[in-house]
């Protein structure tokens, strides 16, 4: 006897996989009770899944798992080592930058001391050592002029 077609047979696969919503599954179950085409399709799909399952073993052999564990260990070690190398390179770059900063700030401080000495000397001696040619000498001139006004020594 040849089974007729049913337009709902395409949904039997989704029902077999548990992919129908609750209401749709309930309606399918009611339909399966009355439709030999769809009921036969469901039986075949269940048998097919069983055949597919038997054909490919579920368990993984121990030597294969050991190889996979070794792969994970090896890869993670290499990733961690690469990360450590990058961090060390970054730390070295920071140290070099700090060293450069310290060296250049030291030179600036030395120049500042020389500048301070010039106006300090002018403030103490009320005498500008040289004609004001730059900011430092100009400042010394002003300080001398101010201090002279205060002491009445213009």
């Amino acid at each position: 006897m040849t089974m007729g077609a049913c337009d709902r047979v395409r949904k039997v696969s989704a029902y077999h996989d548990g992919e129908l919503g609750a209401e749709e599954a309930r309606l399918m179950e009611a339909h399966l009770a009355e439709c030999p085409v769809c009921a036969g399709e469901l039986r075949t799909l269940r048998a097919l899944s069983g055949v597919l399952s038997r054909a490919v073993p579920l368990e993984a052999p121990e030597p294969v798992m050991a190889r996979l564990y070794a792969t994970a260990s090896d890869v993670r070690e290499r990733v961690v080592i690469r990360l450590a190398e990058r961090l060390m390179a970054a730390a070295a770059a920071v140290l070099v930058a700090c060293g450069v900063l310290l060296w250049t700030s030291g030179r600036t401080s030395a120049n500042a001391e020389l500048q301070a000495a010039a106006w300090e000397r002018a403030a103490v001696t009320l005498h500008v050592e040289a004609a004001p040619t730059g900011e430092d000498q100009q400042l010394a001139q002003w300080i001398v002029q101010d201090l002279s006004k205060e002491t009445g020594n213009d």
Partner: protein
Amino acid sequence: MDLGEAELLRRARGGDQAACREIVERFGPGLLRLARSLVGQPADAEDVVQETLSAAFRTLRSFEERASIKTWLSRILLRQAARSHRARYRREAGALDLTGQAEPAAPAADGSADIGIDVRSALAELSTEHREVLVLREYQGLSYTEIAEVLGVPMGTVESRIHRARQELKARLRDYLP
């Protein structure tokens, strides 16, 4: 170790060896089964899984956790399996053999060796699109939503392809079916 996926990933990213082993333990057997269904030779299937896990651990930081670990690994494995096919094709100069018949199996009392060969042969005769959806469902147990995510296709396409793949397999494996 009984960790949720988020914590497992966090530890593995930090280089925790125990977490990495846990990932292999949880997902390795399923990946191997999936690879065996896609790639004919057992040795090639093991290579595919090893390459999958290697790629996964190297790129752990880029995994955005929008999908499950299983879905993510399945996606990587499909790419590795495709590469394995192409490599095998080049090696065999066009004679791509996915039937596993190059590895003759001793007939078992329950015929399990025959069924394995026949199933792999039938799967190999499916189109790539049909084979992938079917093995992801049957051997990885992924939902239609997860399969759609792995393959980057709509869920309706997954449902349609699985239905058609099963109709083809029914015809090719009818000797094993009631």
